[in-house]
């Protein structure tokens, strides 16, 4: 086979050129068989860099192009596009990764240059056997699935639905709203959370283009960008949602009570209940663990008062199959369990609260009607707010949770506002007030005479050393500003728990083929340039499921994800991977090994001809069948045995020599 290969080596400024000897690499390239031109350029991905390739394709009649630069995950699409503009099929392009896999990870220039040569020789080797492929086009289903109905999911749903396209919003809880629904005020502006959130919740509930599936879980995901099929389980509420008017009389009449999850156990709720009065949808559910009918078969107090006869104790879970073109994951976060840090006494001392409990305490609709008071009913005279609980701590989470400093300031302000006399302490490691208006808020709190003690709290206990500590909770802390250990007695302790990934984040992500990092947060396609995309095309992420973040950043990401979805939808059709598997029917022995290998059931058996056949609309090109075929009858386009063998010979060019 004789080719005309053009090789282009990128300096990437000094990113590559600083470690790899570029002139030597170019000379090496020139010496390889079939290479008719080898050039270097400062930034191959720039316009002039691409023009260089295009000119050569046209003037020299190149039939293969190899670029030795960064990772193909970064710029393969760029260079494929450049080739295509010069009428060279995009699959005749090959990349050698000499940045991420070479110059950035090796120190010794000689060794890095040798490795770069091997990677380049591999790419040239593969390029020799590349074949043109024509990508198929498929229609994009214009509907979108959003998983998670916190502020991220709500914002994205409204943005997309307003464009006239259908949105399915799946929320695990019985209402949308997420954590924000639990807050009273939001930093740094202190606007009322309910006032800005509830109208959006109502908008979602009433939007003609949004289908809300609450108290529901995604169970199965299949398909690919443009055409996903998802199975959703709507758990039974024992209520006919069509009939229920949300009047709430059942809740009033229900005689059985238990601790309210929404109020973190600080209030009671009924066995038939809505999490909170502004819940959307306004449909209660029956908790069979509390409802006495499920235990004794008697009661039915709710049935008697329900005029529309919406209550149905026999109602089962419902499986809903939905088809969408894109998916946004907006599953949020969970609060770090402060019980894991025993010395803080959470769960042991009644006056130690976690942050979401405190949010409910300061909420006008919460258990105390917004009064900050102790279990005794008295107002605290001193309150300690402990920062970084479970954050910036190797034993728990290494990351900074980003919002705790700010909500701790918010708490301090609210305490000062409602208990004028109280002394408020903030125990911090570093104050991180990075957002718009955040530093100003911090300065304001300093003026409000909140005390800031720099040091990580060691312990909270009720052990009194003297009279002043009797009946108090004593915090032991090293005050790193004055360089001494202090004991500070207070009436109430509020812990600023960090934000963690949901316990099932990795599992749910797997349904849609997106991965979670070590910390459990979903990984974006590129941390800077593709923050809401994922490695799986058509699946996007928004909000705190990507990393801890505040509401402004969450909303910005949600709108960004919506924009990505709308851009996909407005294309109408998209090209899908052409690098699929194919079967040489004359070689197929009909053994059917591949049929069972294929994870997508893309290979079927032709009973008449006694051969297997690949349905290339279903094939995703993993190549598992290819490796398993005992007759070598299946080949993986763009990853053929020949291409890979030639690449192996290339990367080992210096052994043979």
């Amino acid at each position, binding site marked *: 086979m004789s080719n005309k290969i053009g090789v282009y080596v990128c300096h990437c400024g000094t990113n590559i050129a600083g470690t790899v000897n570029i002139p030597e690499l170019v000379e090496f390239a020139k010496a390889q068989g079939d290479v008719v031109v080898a050039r270097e350029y400062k930034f191959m991905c720039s316009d002039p860099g691409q023009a260089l390739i295009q000119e050569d394709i046209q003037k020299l009649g190149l039939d293969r192009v190899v670029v030795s630069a960064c*990772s*193909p*995950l*970064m710029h393969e699409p760029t260079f494929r596009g450049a080739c295509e503009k010069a009428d060279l099929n995009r699959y005749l392009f090959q990349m050698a*990764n000499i*940045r*991420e*896999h*070479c110059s*950035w*990870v*090796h*120190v*010794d220039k000689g*060794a*890095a240059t*040798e*490795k770069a040569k*091997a*990677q380049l020789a*591999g790419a040239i080797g593969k390029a020799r056997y590349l074949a043109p492929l024509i990508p198929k086009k498929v229609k994009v289903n214009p509907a979108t699935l959003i998983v998670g109905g916190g502020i991220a999911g709500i914002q994205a749903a409204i943005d997309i639905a307003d464009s006239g396209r259908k949105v399915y919003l799946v929320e695990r809880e019985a209402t949308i709203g997420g954590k924000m629904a639990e807050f009273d005020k939001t930093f740094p502006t202190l606007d009322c959370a309910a006032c800005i959130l509830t109208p959006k919740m109502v908008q979602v509930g009433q939007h003609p283009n949004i289908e809300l599936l609450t108290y529901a879980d995604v169970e199965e995901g299949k398909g690919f960008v443009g055409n996903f099929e998802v199975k959703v389980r709507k758990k039974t509420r024992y209520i006919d949602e069509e009939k229920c008017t949300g009047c709430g009389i059942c809740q009033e009449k229900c005689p059985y009570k238990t601790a309210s999850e929404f109020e973190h156990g600080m209030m009671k709720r009924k066995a038939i209940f809505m999490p909170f009065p502004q819940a959307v949808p306004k449909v209660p559910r029956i908790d069979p663990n509390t409802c006495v009918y499920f235990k004794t078969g008697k009661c039915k107090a709710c049935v008697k008062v329900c005029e529309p006869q919406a209550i149905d104790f026999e109602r089962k879970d419902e499986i809903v199959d939905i088809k969408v073109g894109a998916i946004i994951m907006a599953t949020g976060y969970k609060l770090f369990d402060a019980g894991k840090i025993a010395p803080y006494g959470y769960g042991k001392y009644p006056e130690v609260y976690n942050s979401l409990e405190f949010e409910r305490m300061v909420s006008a609709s919460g258990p105390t009607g917004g009064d900050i008071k102790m279990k005794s009913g008295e107002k605290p005279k001193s309150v300690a707010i402990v920062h970084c609980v479970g954050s910036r701590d190797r034993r728990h989470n290494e990351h900074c949770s980003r919002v705790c400093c700010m909500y701790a300031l918010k708490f301090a302000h609210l305490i000062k506002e409602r208990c004028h006399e109280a002394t408020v302490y903030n125990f911090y490691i570093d104050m991180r007030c990075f957002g718009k208006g955040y530093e100003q808020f911090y300065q304001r709190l300093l003026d409000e005479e909140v005390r800031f003690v720099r040091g990580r709290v060691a312990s909270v206990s009720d052990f009194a050393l003297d009279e002043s500590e009797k009946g108090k909770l004593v915090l032991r802390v090293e005050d790193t500003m004055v360089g001494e250990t202090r004991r500070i007695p207070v009436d109430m302790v509020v812990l600023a728990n960090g934000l963690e990934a949901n316990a099932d984040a990795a599992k749910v992500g*797997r349904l849609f*083929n997106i*991965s*979670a*990092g*070590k910390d459990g947060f979903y*990984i974006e396609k590129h941390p800077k340039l593709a923050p809401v995309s994922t*490695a*799986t095309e058509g699946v996007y992420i928004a909000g705190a499921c990507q990393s801890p973040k505040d509401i402004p950043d969450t909303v910005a990401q949600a709108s960004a994800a919506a924009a990505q979805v709308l851009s996909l939808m407005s294309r109408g059709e998209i090209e899908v991977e052409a690098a699929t598997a194919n079967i*040489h029917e004359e070689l197929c022995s009909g053994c059917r090994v591949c049929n069972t*290998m294929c*994870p*997508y059931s893309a290979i079927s058996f032709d009973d008449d001809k006694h051969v297997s056949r690949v349905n290339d609309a279903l094939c*995703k*090109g*993993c*190549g*598992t069948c*290819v*490796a*398993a075929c*005992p*007759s*070598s009858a299946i*080949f*993986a386009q763009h*990853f*053929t*045995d020949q291409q*890979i*063998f*030639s*690449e*192996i*010979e290339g*990367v*080992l060019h210096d*052994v*043979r020599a």
Partner: protein
Amino acid sequence: MTFEPKIVGFLCNWCTYTGADLAGTARIKYAPNVRIIRIMCSGRVDPAFIVKAFAEGADGVLMGGCHPGDCHYINGNFKTFRRMPLLKRYLQQYGIDEKRFRLEWVSASEGDRFAAIVNEFTETVRALGPMQIGHEGVVAPQATEGTAKPVQDHVKHHAEPRKSVQATV
């Protein structure tokens, strides 16, 4: 001069290759001995690729895929894992020390782990010494697509099975 092993790394696009990219972005330094070949899924790795790499003179072969349960194509990594006993048999017959081959699951977020594995494996292979082409009895398999001859058969016919399990250095 110390012996610098040449190792071929077959990395799946979605996890290990991306993890290796992350090691790069994070500028984690590691041994320059692994030459990387990108495949879409570890399931694509035919044992013949590994034999081919040894036959071309690789001193070691590293294969990287997604953690069990994380394969981008559902379970390609599981299928490749199941194929490994067959490979081990090949290696034994060719007298190639099993330790020259390594299968590791590295996720897209484990850049540091990828670097650590490369370092550790490089040292393992360095300790084993250079592969002895010919002496260890491996003949490179050829790509057989388009001919009816299965790759595996081809490999078998071309190589004398050897009894010794350990590579002699």
